[in-house]
C-alpha cells in the first residue's frame, strides 16, 4: 500500500463517514484532523517527487473493458493536491465551530467537502487519459453537488455550471477518444511520444477540444458565465474551497495535457492561417481577455460574493497567462499565483461569509461601517484585498510582479498592458469592497453586530497571515512551486527566501517589505507622535455641509459606486457573451419545440411515406435498380 493509496483511502472513508454522520457537532474537527493528516501525507510524498521525474503510484489498478486504469501522482499533481488538502483544512476549520452549529445541512456540507477532496485527489493523481477523464467527471459532479446545497438560486446556478461542465467534459471525452483512435492508447507517455507525428489539423483539433474542455472549468472567456453565480451561492466554507481550488483543476489539466503531454512548444508551432498568430499566443490572448473583462464586470457587482468570484475568474487569467509564458519565471509565476490566490481569496471569501453570518447580507448597498464591530474580519479582508490587488507586502504582489516581468522578458508589451489594466480594475473594485462593507457609516440595524467567532476568525486570519508570510518570504512558496515546475520539465527558477534572482532583474521582498514597513512606521510616527493625532473620531460623530448627521440619515456613499465607470462598462455588462448563451438556449428550445411538434402531428404515416420515397431514391442512386 503506497502513500497515495493511503491518501485516497483516507479521503474516501472520510467522505463516507461524513455523509453518514456529518451532523455530529464534531464533524468539523474531525475534518480538520483528517485534512491535516492528508496534508501531512501529501507533504510526505514530496521526497521522491522533487527531482521532477518521480511519481507515487497507486496499487489500485482496475482493468475496465481492457483498459488498465492507473493512478499515480507526480509533482504537478502533488502541487495541486497540497493546495486541495490545505484549503480543505481551513474550510473545515471554518465550519468546526459556531458556523457548524447554525447550518441546517451540516451533513451535506461536510460530506460534499470530503467528496470534493476525494474526487480532486483522484483527478490529480490520474495516471492515464481515461482515469483523467473519469476524475474530471467526478470533480465536475462533486462540485455540482456542493453548489446545489442551498436550492433554488444555487440549484439554478449549479445547473448552469453543470451544463457548461458537461459540455466541456464531452469535449475532453471526444479528445481522448480521438487520441485513443489515433495512437491506440490512453497512456500519457504514448501521447507524449506520438505528438510530433500528428498532423497539424489533428493537433489543432486536440488543442481546441482540450482547451475548450479544461477552459470551461477554468472559466476562461467566453465560457465564464457560470462561475460567479455558482460559487457565490454556495455556503461559506464550501464557497471558499471552490473558489480556491475548484477552478484550478482546469489549470492542472491544461498544464498536464497541453503543457506536459502535447507541449506548449508544439502549440507555438501551430500557426493560424492568414493572421500571424499561433495556438499558444491565441490561448494567451484568451487568458488576457479573461484577466480584463471579468475584472471589470466584478466592478459592477453589488453582492460581495459575486464581486469576489468574478475576480476569481480574472485571477485565473493571470495564472494561465503566467504558465503560458512557459519560461522558468513565467511558469513559476503562474503556479505561485495559484497558491497565493488560494490564500487571499479564501481569506476574503471567508471574511465576507463571516459578515454574512453576522449581518445576514452580502449586499454592498446594505452594509457599511463594520470596522469597529468586526475589526479582525476587517483585518483579514484588508490583507486579502491587498493580495488580490497585487500590492506589497502581500504575496499577490510577488506573483504578479513575476508575471509582469516574464511578459517583459519575453517581449509581449500588449499582454503586459492587459495585465496592468486588469490590475487597475482589481484595485478599483477591491476598494469598493472594503469601503462598502467596513468603512463609512454603520447602519442602524448593525449596531449590535459582534465580531465573528474564533473558529471562523482563526482560519481567515491564518490564511491572511500565510499571504503576508509568503509575501515577505516568497521563497517559502517558490520551494513548493519548484516541485511542480520540475515535473513539468521546465527549468527551475533560481530563488532564495526573499525572492527571485535573475540576470535581468531581481526581486527581494525582504527588502521591499522591510522598507515599506519602515516607511509606514515612520509615517505613523510622524502622524501620530509628531502630529499629535492621538484620539479617534466616533463613528457617528460626523458632519457634512455644516450639519451634524445622525445615524438614521444615510450619507454613506455606496450605491452606484463608480458611476462614470459604470456608464463606460454598462453596455458591455450584459454583452455579447450573455447574448450568445441566451441565443444558444433559444435555438435549442426552438429546435426542441420543432421536433416535439413534429411528433405531435396527426398524420404519422406521412413520415413513413417520405422516408420510403427518399430512401428508395437514395438506394437507387448508385446504378439504378
Amino acid at each position, binding site marked *: 500500500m503506497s502513500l497515495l493509496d493511503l491518501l485516497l483511502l483516507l479521503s474516501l472513508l472520510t467522505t463516507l463517514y461524513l455523509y453518514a454522520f456529518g451532523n455530529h457537532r464534531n464533524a468539523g474537527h474531525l475534518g480538520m484532523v483528517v485534512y491535516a493528516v492528508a496534508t501531512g501525507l501529501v507533504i510526505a510524498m514530496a521526497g521522491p517527487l522533487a527531482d521532477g521525474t518521480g511519481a507515487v503510484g497507486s496499487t489500485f489498478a482496475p482493468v475496465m473493458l481492457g483498459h488498465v486504469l492507473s493512478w499515480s501522482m507526480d509533482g504537478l499533481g502533488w502541487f495541486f493536491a497540497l493546495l486541495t488538502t490545505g484549503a480543505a483544512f481551513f474550510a473545515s476549520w471554518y465550519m468546526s465551530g459556531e458556523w457548524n452549529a447554525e447550518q441546517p445541512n451540516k451533513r451535506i456540507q461536510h460530506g460534499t467537502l470530503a467528496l470534493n477532496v476525494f474526487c480532486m485527489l483522484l483527478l490529480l493523481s490520474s495516471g492515464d487519459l481515461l482515469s483523467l477523464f473519469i476524475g474530471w467527471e467526478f470533480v465536475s459532479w462533486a462540485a455540482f453537488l456542493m453548489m446545489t446545497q442551498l436550492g433554488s438560486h444555487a440549484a439554478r446556478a449549479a445547473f448552469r455550471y453543470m451544463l457548461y461542465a458537461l459540455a466541456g467534459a464531452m469535449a475532453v471525452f471526444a479528445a481522448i477518444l480521438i487520441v485513443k483512435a489515433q495512437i491506440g492508447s490512453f497512456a500519457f507517455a504514448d501521447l507524449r511520444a506520438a505528438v510530433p507525428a500528428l498532423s497539424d489539423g489533428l493537433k489543432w483539433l486536440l488543442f481546441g477540444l482540450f482547451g475548450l474542455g479544461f477552459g470551461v472549468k477554468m472559466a476562461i472567456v467566453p465560457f465564464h458565465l457560470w462561475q460567479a453565480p455558482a460559487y457565490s451561492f454556495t455556503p461559506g466554507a464550501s464557497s471558499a474551497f471552490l473558489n480556491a481550488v475548484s477552478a484550478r483543476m482546469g489549470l492542472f489539466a491544461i498544464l498536464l495535457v497541453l503543457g506536459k503531454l502535447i507541449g506548449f512548444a508544439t502549440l507555438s508551432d501551430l500557426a493560424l492561417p492568414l493572421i500571424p498568430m499561433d495556438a499558444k499566443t491565441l490561448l494567451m490572448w484568451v487568458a488576457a481577455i479573461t484577466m480584463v473583462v471579468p475584472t471589470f464586470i466584478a466592478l459592477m457587482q453589488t453582492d460581495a460574493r459575486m464581486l469576489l468570484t468574478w475576480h476569481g475568474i480574472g485571477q485565473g487569467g493571470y495564472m494561465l497567462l503566467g504558465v503560458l509564458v512557459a519560461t522558468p519565471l513565467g511558469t513559476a509565476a503562474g503556479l505561485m499565483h495559484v497558491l497565493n490566490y488560494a490564500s487571499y481569496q479564501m481569506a476574503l471569501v471567508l471574511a465576507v461569509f463571516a459578515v454574512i453570518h453576522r449581518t445576514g447580507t452580502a449586499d454592498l448597498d446594505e452594509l457599511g461601517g463594520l470596522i469597529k464591530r468586526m475589526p479582525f474580519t476587517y483585518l483579514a479582508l484588508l490583507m486579502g484585498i491587498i493580495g488580490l490587488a497585487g500590492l506589497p507586502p502581500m504575496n499577490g504582489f510577488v506573483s504578479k510582479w513575476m508575471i509582469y516581468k516574464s511578459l517583459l522578458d519575453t517581449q509581449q508589451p500588449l499582454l503586459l498592458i492587459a495585465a496592468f489594466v486588469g490590475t487597475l480594475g482589481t484595485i478599483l473594485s477591491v476598494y469598493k469592497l472594503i469601503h462598502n462593507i467596513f468603512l463609512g457609516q454603520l447602519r442602524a440595524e448593525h449596531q449590535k453586530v459582534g465580531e465573528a467567532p474564533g473558529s471562523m476568525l482563526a482560519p481567515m486570519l491564518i490564511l491572511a497571515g500565510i499571504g503576508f508570510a509568503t509575501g515577505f518570504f516568497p521563497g517559502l512558496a517558490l520551494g513548493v512551486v519548484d516541485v511542480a515546475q520540475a515535473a513539468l520539465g521546465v527549468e527551475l527558477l533560481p530563488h532564495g527566501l526573499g525572492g527571485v534572482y535573475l540576470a535581468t532583474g531581481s526581486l527581494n521582498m525582504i527588502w521591499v517589505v522591510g522598507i515599506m514597513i519602515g516607511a509606514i512606521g515612520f509615517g505613523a510616527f510622524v502622524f501620530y507622535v509628531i502630529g499629535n493625532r492621538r484620539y479617534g473620531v466616533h463613528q457617528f460623530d460626523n458632519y457634512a455641509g455644516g450639519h451634524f448627521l445622525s445615524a438614521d440619515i444615510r450619507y454613506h456613499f455606496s450605491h452606484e459606486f463608480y458611476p462614470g465607470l459604470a456608464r463606460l462598462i454598462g453596455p458591455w455588462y450584459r454583452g455579447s457573451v450573455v447574448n450568445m448563451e441566451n441565443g444558444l438556449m433559444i435555438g435549442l428550445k426552438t429546435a426542441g*419545440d420543432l421536433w416535439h411538434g413534429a411528433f*405531435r402531428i*396527426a*398524420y404519422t*404515416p*406521412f413520415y413513413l*411515406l417520405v422516408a420510403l420515397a427518399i430512401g428508395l431514391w437514395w438506394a437507387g442512386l448508385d446504378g439504378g435498380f
Partner: protein
Amino acid sequence: MTDAMLLAEALGDVLYTGAIGLILLGLYAMVVPRHLVRIVLGLLLVQSGVNLFLVAVGYRPEAAAPILLGGQAIGPVVDPLPQALVLTAIVIGVGVLALALALVVRVKDVHGTLDSREVAERMAAETGDSRLMPETAPGRGAAVPAREMLEDRS
C-alpha cells in the same frame, strides 16, 4: 423472344402495375384522408398490393398450380412458397383488421369522433394532465387547461 415469353412479360407488367397501384392508393388513403375507417381501408389496400406482388414473384409461366392431383408430379409447378406466405399474410391481415376495427369502435365510443386529427388532439389534451380518466365518458377531451399545459412553457 417467343410469344409465350412476351405474354408472360405483359402479364408481369399488368400485375406489377396492379400491385403498385394498390400500394400507392392505399398509402394515399392512409396519409391524406382523416377518417379512421378510410385509413383502415387504405391499410387493407396496401396489404392486398403487397400480397399480389408476393404471389406474382412466385409465378412461373406454363407451370401448374402446386397441387399434385393424383399424387404425381406432372411438369413444373409455380412456386408454392410465396403462396404459403401470402396465405399466412392474409390471415394475419384479417386479425390486424379486426383489432383495428375494434379500436375504431372504441375510439368512436370514447372520443366521439373518428377524425384522426381530432382524436390526436383529444388524446394530447387528455394525457396532458392526468393519466387515468374514468372510461365511461364519451367525447371527453375538452379539457382546455390540459391543452394549455402542452403549449410552450419557458
